[in-house]
């Protein structure tokens, strides 16, 4: 009986060990590759509700540097209100929608972002108080006027298959990528809670970070004409768009690189960075030609005057000394001649 019990125990132990070993062995293989995911994974909302969906990236032990995300959402039920890029880990954007693009996005139900992190992103640092893996937050609204017309239904905000993530390996290698979408359950009852996005926009009074404008000229770009480059970030709601003003001309919505209209470089150039809440930071550049003009008309500095005075004084003294020596010399010669002419 004891032997039989023992055998049974061993058999049980083998089963547990077997299951655990298989699970532990295969698990790392299954989680290989970065994960681009939406948060929350599931959500339940009522008509009139405002909510956010965060796009996050977990590099899963890899170091990545470029992210390109394409998303689709049910534009017959959801309305995109805004895009929050304030907490994004992406620092250099290649392509991001501005507030001017929201209307078009709502018509198509598709959003595209792409950008990068110089030096790469290798995941959350131990001790970091935040998750620090957000690419962007999309703020949605469910129109309340649909009451009575909508049945309870579940829709999906999907990360599209053409989304890409590149490794920080200097070769542009594509990372293996897993996706996790967000399921939205819409209840046909009236909701309409707090609009967090509007609150955030109202509370954001911090302007974008200060920045500088650089004038460039390259024989291979814009046919060798002068252009400017500019870039900045905003930690609250993210940069929405830039505007450029040359001299007395009107402000123009612009992107970097920007070809200057005035190639004479004799006017002030201003670039305005505007965040999603409408806060502005303006950078001003006085091109070299402008800088030179005030120098030319500026009164001479006191130091220069003093130097000149000293120089003139020394030269004058030297000239006086020379004249004095010359006079003495001539006088002596005349005296010598007179002495010679005197009768002995």
């Amino acid at each position, binding site marked *: 009986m004891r032997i039989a019990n023992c055998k049974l125990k061993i058999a049980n132990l083998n089963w547990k060990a*077997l299951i655990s*070993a*298989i699970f*532990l*062995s295969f698990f*790392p*293989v299954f989680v*290989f590759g970065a994960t681009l995911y939406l948060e929350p994974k599931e959500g339940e909302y009522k008509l009139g509700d405002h909510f956010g969906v965060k796009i996050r990236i977990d590099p899963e*032990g*890899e*170091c990545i540097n*470029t992210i390109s995300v394409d998303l689709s959402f049910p534009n017959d039920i959801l309305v995109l209100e805004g895009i929050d890029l*304030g*907490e*994004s880990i992406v*620092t*250099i954007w*290649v392509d991001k929608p501005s507030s001017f693009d929201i209307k078009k996005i709502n018509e198509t139900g598709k959003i595209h972002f*792409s950008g*990068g*992190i*110089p*030096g*790469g*992103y*290798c*995941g*959350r*640092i*131990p*001790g*970091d*108080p*935040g998750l*620090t893996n*957000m690419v962007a937050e999309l703020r949605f609204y469910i129109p309340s006027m649909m009451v009575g017309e909508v049945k309870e239904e579940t829709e999906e905000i999907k990360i599209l298959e053409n989304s*890409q993530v*590149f*490794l*920080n*390996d*200097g*070769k*542009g290698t594509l990372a293996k990528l897993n996706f996790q979408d967000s399921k939205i359950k819409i209840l046909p009852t009236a909701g309409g809670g707090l609009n967090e996005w509007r609150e955030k926009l109202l509370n954001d009074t*911090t302007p974008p*970070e200060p*920045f500088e404008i*650089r004038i*460039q000229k*390259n024989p*291979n*770009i*814009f046919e060798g004409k002068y252009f400017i*480059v500019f*870039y900045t*970030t905003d*930690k609250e709601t993210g940069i929405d768009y830039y505007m450029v003003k040359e001299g007395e001309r009107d402000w123009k919505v612009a*992107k*970097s*690189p920007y070809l200057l209209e005035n190639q004479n470089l004799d006017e002030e150039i201003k670039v305005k960075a505007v965040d999603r809440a409408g806060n502005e930071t303006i950078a001003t550049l006085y091109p070299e030609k402008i800088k030179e003009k005030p120098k030319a008309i500026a009164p001479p500095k006191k130091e220069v005057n003093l130097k000149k005075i000293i120089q003139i004084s020394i030269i004058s003294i030297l000239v006086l000394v020379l004249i004095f020596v010359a006079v003495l010399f001539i006088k002596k010669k005349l005296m010598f001649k007179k002495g010679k002419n005197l009768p002995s």
Partner: protein
Amino acid sequence: MELWKRFLKVFLLISIFCPFLSLKTFAQKQIPTIVGISVCGDGSIDGFEVCDGDNFGGKTCATYGYNRGYLLCVDNCTRISVEHCYTEPGGMGAGGGGYPGGATRPLGPTTLIVLGKAYPDTEVKILKDGKEIARVRTDSQANFSWQTTDITPGVNSLSFWADDKFGLRSILYTLTFEVMPNAVTTVRGAYLPPTIGVDKNIVKRGETLKIFGQTIPEAKVPVYIASPAEIIQETDSKKTGEWDILFDTTPLEDETMHTAKSQFKTTIEGSTVVSGFSKFVTFYVGKKAPAGICPGADLNQDGKVNLIDFSILLYYWGTNNPCADQNQDGIVNLVDFSIMMYYWTG
């Protein structure tokens, strides 16, 4: 029953073998440096902290042999001060920590401290969100520290790079993390991987190639040479941080471009620290190497990879410009942008 036993054996073998397969896959990935963050001011004792605000981990003045007074958390949460503890005959017992009379700790400025290592006696360039904001010098042990209050709370991306004594440039090492408002965020372990260079860019098969660079003093430096089977050679760095290996190119494939990268391994404060990988250096084994166009994503060839190069890349986006098309696949796209992010200097 026999069949079942065989099945069990096969599964057990797979179970034992698979973790090694997984570990091998993991080992091939970039192993991150041991880097950690502690936030002084969030009330939680973490990392190198011994206290935080009013949290002294249960310690009071009595812990230090006093029966009156209160403790203070000082030096960015790394020291408990007993300056305000005292002993009174017949005292009723020592108070806890914090400010007397229930006063709350005054809010300090948002501060960021970074402690790291690069190369001995060099200058480390610090970038915030891709733009250079500061330079600091390292000491003879390659240590550097940098502190600022000019930082906006929220998600910040800080990058570091340095040139070594040979003029070789390090990889851009980036840390992305959240800076807490009115607290001191300390980042420890910002260790730059070694620099790496080769004495010849073209080498005949069988010739010796010198691979060299600089790192922290007296560390192990494994060098990884890519070939069908990766070749690893290890050396030690000198007191000045210099290291080199003489590599026999016989095992490498002829008329092919090869790459090498390195990292450092050492023990710091009792912990084994392994840096990330260096920039990879390329060399050609054979007679004539193919010409490189705008190497290292420096599109305007000014020695830096920054917003100007990014703007040039955007200008050529979607075209086949040979300079901007870094991987020479006939189109300027995200792959080329990714290569630029790798070579970024700010």
